[in-house]
């Protein structure tokens, strides 16, 4: 069925488009040749809001995350992350347990300094309450985290546990989504799942009242590392 359907649909598409093509009625204001467009990765209009430079983009990133009910904590260096994570769990009355991505940027942190913390590495399980992950890039434009599901970054950690703590290095903060795409292409292209996350899970399906924690994480907490390393 499929091969027939494929040919029939493509034939119908070509037949329908033929009239316009013959009439040379360009419905294509950009005039791009399609093959070149796929190769070129040309950017369309980029909004101005991220043109203010690094410091302004850090401030914008934080403002945008807080605007969608996420929280941000700034630390001077990566070595502070374990202490800050333990503090987060205590503050929210959560058991001292983490499901952590086996991402070397996280596993290399000084966890021994938090001996009470029970850490399991791997994909998420139903019983996990807190996930700790890194991020591929962070986008200042809308306070968005770009997660790429490489082998050391299982995607279920982003969605299954109630609390999602994300470690972001300032050097991974870019202005726009397009900047993040360029980085991902340079890293070898799209993994199975690439997710942009902007705030904790929410719904407005009951009387349009914005309500947090629909199916994904109820809380999204970003730990922003200022140092360059």
């Amino acid at each position: 069925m499929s091969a027939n359907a494929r040919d029939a649909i493509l034939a119908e598409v070509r037949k329908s488009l033929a009239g316009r093509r013959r009439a040379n009625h360009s419905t294509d204001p950009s005039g791009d040749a399609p093959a070149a467009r796929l190769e070129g990765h040309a950017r369309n209009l980029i909004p101005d809001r991220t043109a203010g430079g690094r410091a302004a983009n850090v401030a914008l990133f934080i403002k945008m995350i807080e605007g969608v009910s996420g929280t941000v904590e700034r630390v001077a260096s990566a070595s502070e992350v374990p202490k800050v994570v333990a503090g987060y769990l205590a503050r929210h009355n959560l058991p001292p347990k983490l499901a952590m991505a086996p991402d070397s940027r996280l596993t290399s942190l000084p966890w021994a300094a938090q001996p009470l913390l029970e850490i399991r590495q791997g994909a998420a399980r139903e019983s996990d309450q807190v996930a700790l992950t890194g991020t591929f890039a962070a986008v200042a434009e809308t306070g968005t985290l770009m997660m790429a599901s490489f082998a050391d970054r299982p995607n279920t950690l982003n969605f299954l546990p109630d609390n999602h703590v994300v470690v972001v290095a300032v050097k991974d903060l870019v202005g726009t989504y397009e900047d993040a795409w360029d980085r991902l292409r340079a890293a070898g292209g799209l993994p199975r799942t690439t997710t942009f996350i902007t705030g904790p899970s929410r719904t407005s399906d009951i009387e349009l009242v914005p309500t947090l924690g629909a199916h994904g994480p109820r809380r999204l907490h970003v730990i922003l590392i200022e140092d360059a390393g």
Partner: protein
Amino acid sequence: MELTSPRFKANVRDALKKPNLKTAMGRLISTMGPRRLAARAGLPEFERLCDQARDIKNHTLANLDFYLEAYEAKLRASGGTLHWCRTPEEARATILDLCRQADARTVTKGKSMIAEEIGLNEFLEANGIEPVETDLGEYIIQIAGEAPSHIIAPAVHKTKEEIADLFFEKHQRYGLPKRSEPKDLVDDARKILRPRYIAADVGITGANFLIAETGSSVIVTNEGNGDLTQSLPKMHIVVASLEKLVPTLEDVTTILRVLARSATGQEFSTYTTFSTGPRRADDLDGPADYHVILLDNGRSRLLGTEFQDMLRCIRCGACMNNCPVYAAIGGHAYGSTYVGPMGAVLTPSLVGLADSHHLPNASSFCGRCEEVCPMRIPLPKLMRAYREQSFAAKLGPAPERWALAAWAFAAKRPRLYRLVSEAAARLLGNHGARRGAFRRLPLAGGWTGGRDLPAPEGRTFHSLWRERRRAGAA
């Protein structure tokens, strides 16, 4: 769903009698309009981005054969499988086949209008597979046994009291107490659906976009349900249609900048997820199989016609959120999968005018829908084109056609038109002068049933115009 568009007028009469519907629709209009405007005001480039979004889709549609084949090649290279389907029947049969290959007993579903279009849930149930809707709005209408009344807020016609009653009735077997605040209802649904995600054998989602450059499918959600639906089961099936194609990641990014702002007034939706093939060899999670259903269902025939413009639609819902007719009658009255102004154009395109010729009449031609459409779709013009087609095909009631034909005859003959309209204005002016309005008019009972017709002053515009010109020249 069963198409009840042929009964549109009766549907409208019923809808107007429902007090809760009026409350719910009033809330939609007063909430969503301002939210969109605020988001638009927050991005000075918004209107220019809309122009570019339109151009991107025009370019894609003009080269759709090329982009479809490019997409197919990339999808295959990433390990996914593409299934071309001409009709809803072919799409349903293909999905059932895949579910059987996976030995599926339950499938979880993210929100998909294409799944609604092909009537997937009823079909799966009839074949012994339980579909579980996971988007909260879709879940609500699934357990209520209803169809969506809005393309992005499917249960917007229900008040929280109605949802609380419904949940109490359906959730008693889980031992849940009656609760009525939105946050508690959301929590109840979360509790009930959690184990369903984990138990499901197959996850079915829609696609907001398909990317030719990478072979990816894209979903845009706020709840995260679509992501759990596609990450946990061993098979992920995407249900999409031809016009979802977009060339590059840059192109989809431009469209994403106007989508959320137009739809919900958000800067960006909470989750925008690009799925590219099945899980990779070293991945710790993700589906082992990835299939994309690519539905035509009449879309290819719209290319090259004036209705091609409709294929730019990104299903943001702004046109219905700003439509006075939709606000008055709600989505169910349309009797079709797609509702509001976009549905009034898309439904005739997909199912034919014979069954849906009332829908293009569901417009006051105020033009709001076109004004707010981020893809610049000339919805009123397309509705008018369908009105012309149904007039030509004699689909309307005979008296209406005769009246229009008589008017057209006169309108093409200026002297006759002036004579007749002046006589009519005088007649109506004389009879209505006392009250200033008519409560009832012969042959126009439908129109005067709900309002008065203001009486003309006794003169026509033409004659006043002539008089002024003469006075001005003197």
